[in-house]
């Protein structure tokens, strides 16, 4: 029972950070999502020691564990676009597949080359 209250309270704290961030984004017409500002704000609060990790873990863990649940109702919105996908679905295949290959190979090769050269520099010193 005590844990349940703690969980609810911690989720409320996360909601409060989200609320403040979306309000700030709207008020100042910032061109970034409110949730991203909220993420940065929470990261800053954690880094600054203002909020302790233990104050949030109980509320954050179930939300993160079931994060993909939230995408289901949104993805159901696809039912309104059925025609579009049956008519043009085949055109989507190449852009999606090629860009995924680009992401994997580009990131992998760049990081592997850069970490190698960093280590060599380190060794020379």
């Amino acid at each position, binding site marked *: 029972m005590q844990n349940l209250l703690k969980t609810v309270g911690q989720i409320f704290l996360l909601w409060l950070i989200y609320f403040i961030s979306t309000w700030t984004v709207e008020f100042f017409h910032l061109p970034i999502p409110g949730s991203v500002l909220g993420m940065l704000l929470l990261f800053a609060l954690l880094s600054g020691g203002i909020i302790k990790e233990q104050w949030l873990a109980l509320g954050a863990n179930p939300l993160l564990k079931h994060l993909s*649940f939230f995408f289901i109702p949104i993805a*159901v919105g696809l039912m309104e676009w059925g025609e579009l996908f049956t008519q043009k679905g085949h055109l989507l295949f190449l852009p999606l597949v090629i860009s995924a290959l680009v*992401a994997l190979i580009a990131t992998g090769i760049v990081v592997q080359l850069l970490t190698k050269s960093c280590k060599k520099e380190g060794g020379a010193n």
Partner: protein
Amino acid sequence: MPAAMLIFLTILLTVILYLMSRKIFLHTKNPIFNPVLLSTTVIIIVFHYTGITFDQYKPGKDIMTFLLGPATVALALPLYLNRGVLLQALFPILFGICFGALATLTTAVLLAKLSGLDALIVASIAPKSITAPIAIEISRLTGGDPAIAVAFVVFTGTLGSIIGPSLLSSCKITNPIARGLAMGVTSHGQGTATILQEGALQGAMAGVAMAVAAIFISFIAPLYIPWLVNL
């Protein structure tokens, strides 16, 4: 049927399907059986045959996604806990994430334009490698559609999880930092879950890549995506 009853039943259907598909996914560990893909497909089929419209589902959808915002904010927690791995090679990691995220977004948008797809689809394909909650927000800010964006995000997450590890190996990308980052940049949460099976370092790197890529793309998206779409 009264409206409140229908809302309750559609929420119940969504929750039950999610729990069932999650069980199947955790049991098989096959990226094809991811809960979003399975549940969404079944729900759309059920709605198709029972005649339930998306408008009737919307009140339930709003109730179910009420906590999505706070959940997205909570992504700062794993990033904070994994901040130590960033210091292993700060510049290569940050540069690699931003380079990869930009490369895949640009390739996807340009190829979609060349395929003759309309602006709504092109704008919705742009955030396809970004974690779903933030891809939804980015698509709203840049003239895309959140539902289409989620579909592309899940497709990319599934594809990357299936081909990623073997493709990286065949390209001789063996460094665990590089493998983790590549999977996080490409396939966000799904890629992170997949590469975590190779090791804790790879998993932590993928988680960091997913968060940093989402933040980086959020900042450039409002200017870069409309510019690229209208090029």
